[in-house]
């Protein structure tokens, strides 16, 4: 029995050991927390490295694509040169012959011999016999001219008619020019036209034609548009086309001005969409103003202007070269868009229409309006095309604007963890903060309620009491000691509850403080957003008024006045 008596000192020793154990467990627990935080930090850094790596890979891919695209462009250009290089020679001769004939510095026989050789160089090409006919005309050889002309018309009737319409106009033979133009018009179907109609529009817009031809052009254009407008769905198609084209003028918004809205608001995608369109008004206005404010780069006398249009006719509209030209166009768009293939393809879808062989007249107008260079059209012609398409453009612009305005969200939602709040104008910051705090406090209370002694604590206590009690009964000191572990375990369990509760309170205090800052920032950004939106949206009226003020007559150069002055002078 005496061996079983445990001295008070031993019990104190046991208690100290258990305390030490408790402290060591606390230490281990705090070490675990530290390691957890460090793991979170490492995790964040790994994320940053990963996203940097992905960005690097994207940049590398883009650079490689650009290099490959440039090589491809060179290869296609070489192919075009190889297959169609001789066409270029013939084209240069067309203007050369006309200018040489003006100056009378070359013998007519020389001109004729050159054209004969061209016939041999390019079998099947319409321009070769057309030049022979021209040379024969200069030499006053009617029989040869008729023969060559028939061959040229057989190879390409429309181009030959246009060519001689311009050549005659160049020589101030108004009646012949009008006849050839009338012949060309007679072959036209407004539903299915080739791109060379651009040449006619170039002549019309730049005042090349005399009054009769000009009147004929004006009437034809008016009749074609009327006829097309009567077709089911035609006007809707034009609006849709212009809607797409105007929509493409929007720029993606990366939201860098509104970081909280981007990260915390489920409404951001709608907000971004309406803001993108609002910002586009300025760009659309600038786009049209730049076109209409630019001075015609077609200065020069009538012959110079006609030569330019002639060059355009012979250079830009050959069907055989079309596939290669399309390929070159797409590749050059990829370069322009810095390797962004999606963006390049979007632009190509619109601009490629300019290269389509057969389209209806309105499609040609749209193509010229949107991509005049691709169509080989002159600046004045682009202005004319836009003004003829004005109604469709304005309808598309108005409809698109109204649609976007109707999508402005009534409520902007903020989401912080599981809490959601909303605002119409950013003016209810106090209310949002109060709602957020109530929500967080509810959550905190629930968490605090969960901090309590667990079943194991009570189990240990009961087991301990039972063991100690039994030990007392049988006077077994060891059993008593073991039984005492139960209450001690419970004691330390209870001691640990308050620190846990304190941790929870601190955690939620931190969340509330951070969330309050987010709400303040959110409300400020909502106010800024709507300010910017209204400011940008206000540009719409100016752009609309500008478009309404455009008229086709403004952009048709008038050579009649000059002619009348010359005629009057001659008549005097």
């Amino acid at each position: 029995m005496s061996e079983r008596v445990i001295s008070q000192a031993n019990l104190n020793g046991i208690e100290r050991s258990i305390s030490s154990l408790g402290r060591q467990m606390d230490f281990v627990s705090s070490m675990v927390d530290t390691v957890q935080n460090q793991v979170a930090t490492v995790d964040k850094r790994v994320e940053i490295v990963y996203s940097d790596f992905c960005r690097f890979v994207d940049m590398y891919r883009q650079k490689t694509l650009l290099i490959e695209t440039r090589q491809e462009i060179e290869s296609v250009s070489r192919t075009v040169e190889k297959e169609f290089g001789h066409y270029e020679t013939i084209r240069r001769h067309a203007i050369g012959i006309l200018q040489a004939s003006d100056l009378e510095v070359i013998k007519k026989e020389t001109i004729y011999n050159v054209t004969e050789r061209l016939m041999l160089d390019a079998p099947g090409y319409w321009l070769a016999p057309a030049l022979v006919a021209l040379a024969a005309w200069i030499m006053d050889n009617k029989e040869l001219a008729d023969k060559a002309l028939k061959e040229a018309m057989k190879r390409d009737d429309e181009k030959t008619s246009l060519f001689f319409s311009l050549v005659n106009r160049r020589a101030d033979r108004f009646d012949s020019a009008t006849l050839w133009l009338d012949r060309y018009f007679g072959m036209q179907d407004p539903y299915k036209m080739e791109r060379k109609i651009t040449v006619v529009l170039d002549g019309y817009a730049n005042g090349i034609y005399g009054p009769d031809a000009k009147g004929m052009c004006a009437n034809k254009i008016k009749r074609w548009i009327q006829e097309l407008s009567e077709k089911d769905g035609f006007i809707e198609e034009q609006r849709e086309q212009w809607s797409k084209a105007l929509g493409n003028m929007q720029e993606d918004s990366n939201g860098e001005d509104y970081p909280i809205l981007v990260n915390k608001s489920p409404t951001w995608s709608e907000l971004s969409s309406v803001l993108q369109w609002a910002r586009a008004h300025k760009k659309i206005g600038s786009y049209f103003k730049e076109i209409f404010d630019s001075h015609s780069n077609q200065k020069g006398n009538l012959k110079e202007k006609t030569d330019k249009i002639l060059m355009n006719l012979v250079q830009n509209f050959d069907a055989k070269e079309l596939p290669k030209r399309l390929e070159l166009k797409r590749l050059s768009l990829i370069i322009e868009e810095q390797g962004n293939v999606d963006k390049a393809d979007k632009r190509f879808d619109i601009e490629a229409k300019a290269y389509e062989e057969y389209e209806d007249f309105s499609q040609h107008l749209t193509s010229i309006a949107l991509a005049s260079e691709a169509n080989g059209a002159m600046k004045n012609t682009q202005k004319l095309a836009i003004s003829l398409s004005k109604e469709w453009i304005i309808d598309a612009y108005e409809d698109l604007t109204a649609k976007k305005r109707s999508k402005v969200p009534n409520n902007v939602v903020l989401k912080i963890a599981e809490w959601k709040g909303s605002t119409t104008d950013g003016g209810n910051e106090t209310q949002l903060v109060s709602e957020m705090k109530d929500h967080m406090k509810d959550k905190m209370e629930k968490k605090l309620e969960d901090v309590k002694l667990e079943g194991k604590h009570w189990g240990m206590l009961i087991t301990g009491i039972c063991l100690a009690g039994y030990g007392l009964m049988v006077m077994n000191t060891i059993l008593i000691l073991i039984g005492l572990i139960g209450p001690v375990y419970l004691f330390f369990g209870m001691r640990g509850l308050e620190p846990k509760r304190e941790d929870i309170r601190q955690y939620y205090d931190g969340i509330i403080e951070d969330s309050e800052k987010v709400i303040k920032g959110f409300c400020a950004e909502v106010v800024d957003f709507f300010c910017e939106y209204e400011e940008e949206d206000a540009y719409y009226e100016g752009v609309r008024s500008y478009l309404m003020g455009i008229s086709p007559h403004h952009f048709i150069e008038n050579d009649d006045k000059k002619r009348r002055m010359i005629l009057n002078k001659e008549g005097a």
Partner: protein
Amino acid sequence: MKRGGHMPKPLYNHNKMKSGFQADRMTGSSKIRTRAKKLRQKRSTGYMEAVKQLDVNGCKMTTDQYEQLIQVMDEEFADIPNGERLEGIVAKCYLGDEFEVHALDLIGNIIHHYKKGEAMPKNLERARRIAQHGSYAYIEVYQSMLIAIRADGSGSVIN
């Protein structure tokens, strides 16, 4: 239309209403084309003035005034081949700060001025935002589209 709070009463018996917008038997793509073209045409001054009265008279509009309004609307759309019904008109409300929009619900024959946050019938709710914009005199609500009418009577279609 039933809503909590202020419950607008139908202005008069639905059966008595002369409907200018019932579908007739005309079909065909040319009628659809004609209809679409005519709906885009400028609204007449008389029609614009009549719609303005919605805000001026408020909920105090009498049955006679309402019938007059419907008659003006019938005349405005008389030569439009039908295929879709005009369901209502929504416009910005200038009665006071607490009011956002007012609406003429042609299905329920109700005119009501809606306060901020007060829900509208589902078919008219989609016109709320654009009606508040201020650039449009009012918004015509159809089944499959909205037409935003400007002060000069010209309209933009929202599909």
